[in-house]
């Protein structure tokens, strides 16, 4: 209870939003639109899993949005060339892993601060993509959407895959030695080195993993519509980082878990549709979103103020 206070307070905020919806806008709870909402958020969740890992290891990656765009466009172009889906999927993940490795090499190999490195790669990738594509859509051939499975099956597949990643990484972080290494490196990299772990390698791998997950997520997004917009990932980094830190993962590393990140993600994902359902005018959206972020963490702040932290 004590250790999971932040996660619980975010979950409580989520419950409040959901209850408000149940009372004032029960239409929110129709199965099909709800499934659609979840499907839309599934790629974000997959990226959030990777991002949580990166942040727990005391790094950050703000280039995920740009990576997502690049992977989407690559996957789209390959699919448009007629590559079969079972090749496009790994290609997209590999593309992401490559970009992640680039970040990882700079951060772990040269020991540069990750926020600056990924800021640089973000700008570079995004503007590079603009330069090459000039915002033009990629039209996909039939059979790419829903991976050729049909809509409902495809949506379930995507949602369940994302949840699968969540559970796998959530449990892995807690119960696999590798997961604990991530915490150790984030908690104190020098102590990790002295304990015989390899913090630089861990950092590198975490970035590669995030890249690969971003590539997969891009594919999960591409599979939801018959076209790819090169801008598709813009703003993703902020959304994902917000979800993860609101969910209690400490930006200073070593603390937090995926369940909190999941709650944070759902909370933020619910705000926009909730406002639509409650017929709140769109001008208020950002203000309310900001207020919710603040309120969700204020409880945590009040508590830590009372219970004398050392």
């Amino acid at each position: 209870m004590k250790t999971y206070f932040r996660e619980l307070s975010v979950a409580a905020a989520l419950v409040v939003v959901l209850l408000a919806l149940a009372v004032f806008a029960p239409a929110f709870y129709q199965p099909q639109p709800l499934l659609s909402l979840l499907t839309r958020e599934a790629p974000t969740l997959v990226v959030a899993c990777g991002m949580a890992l990166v942040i727990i290891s005391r790094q950050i990656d703000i280039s995920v949005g740009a990576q997502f765009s690049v992977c989407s466009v690559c996957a789209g172009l390959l699919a448009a060339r007629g590559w079969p889906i079972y090749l496009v999927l790994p290609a997209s993940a590999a593309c992401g892993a490559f970009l992640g490795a680039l970040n990882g090499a700079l951060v772990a190999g040269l020991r540069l601060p990750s926020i600056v490195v990924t800021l640089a790669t973000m700008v570079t990738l995004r503007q590079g993509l603009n330069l090459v594509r000039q915002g033009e859509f990629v039209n996909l051939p039939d059979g790419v959407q829903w991976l050729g499975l049909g809509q409902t099956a495809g949506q379930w597949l995507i949602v369940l895959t994302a949840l699968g990643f969540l559970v796998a990484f959530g449990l892995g972080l807690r119960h696999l030695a590798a997961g604990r290494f991530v915490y150790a490196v984030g908690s104190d990299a020098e102590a990790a080195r002295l304990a015989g772990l390899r913090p630089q390698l861990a950092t590198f791998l975490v970035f590669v993993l995030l890249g690969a997950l971003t590539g997969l997520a891009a594919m999960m997004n591409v599979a939801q519509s018959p076209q790819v917009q090169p801008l598709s990932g813009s703003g993703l980094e902020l959304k994902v980082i917000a979800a993860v830190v609101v969910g209690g993962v400490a930006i200073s590393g070593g603390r937090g878990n995926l369940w909190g990140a999941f709650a944070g993600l759902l909370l933020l994902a619910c705000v926009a549709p909730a406002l639509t359902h409650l017929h709140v005018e769109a001008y208020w959206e950002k203000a309310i979103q900001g207020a919710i972020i603040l309120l969700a963490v204020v409880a945590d702040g009040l508590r830590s103020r009372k219970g004398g932290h050392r």
Partner: protein
Amino acid sequence: KAGADKAAKELGVQLLFDGPTDSNAAKQNEIVENWITLGVDVIAVAAENKEGISTALRKAQKQGIKVLTYDADAMTDARSFFVNQATPEGIGQGLMDEAARLTGGEGEFAMIVASLTAANQREWQKHVEARLKEKYPKMKLVAVRPCDDLKDKAQSEATAMLSANPKLKLIMAICSPGVPGAAEAVKQAGQTGKVKVMGLGLPNENRRYVKEGVTDSIILWNTGDLGYLTIYAGVALAKDELKQGAKTLKAGSLGTFSIVGDNILLGKPFIFNKANIDQFDF
């Protein structure tokens, strides 16, 4: 852009083209001021922010640079001519009339815009609402949501609109990524035909949905022609061939255009639908 390049080549002039990919007033001012110090002959702008850009444009005029606006106008005293494919009023009315035609003039509809602050979007929205009030009392605008020029976000917003407003008859998107986004949402919700989709966009981005009958009509101002015409107008202006009070302008292969006041009119917006979409590829 392509049209502009073509015209520039035909006329043998050098064209500088710069456009922020994200709509941003301050950046546009910086670009214009940059051109002023570069000492160009003519500046043509699609104003992002009417008032903001006008100060920069007046400065340009003071230095003897000819100023044109296209697509979105600035303050009238800050430019010589406005190359207009359609007035915002015309676009607003065109959109609303088409929406009314599709819904039979009654029922709820919702709008997807690029952002809540972009000047041209606000202008068009204003005219849509004015037209609605004036001519279609039985129709009701139930929601306006921004999509940040992202197709994916438009899709999410449209999905929420659909379930929040069960009586929705039509979604109108006035930014180009909004139309396919809304169409995909309607299609996934299984409401094809029941909820109509229309808006401003390009044929290639919407072809699939138009053919499937999800999207009913796409209104387009022909950007290629607009660029072409703008360049011709600019060159004419620079050579002093185009003066206040002129009534026509000859523009290469596109023929002659009429000038009303200080508006050079490109003509009526074009409407794509199932019947004619296959004739266009861009």
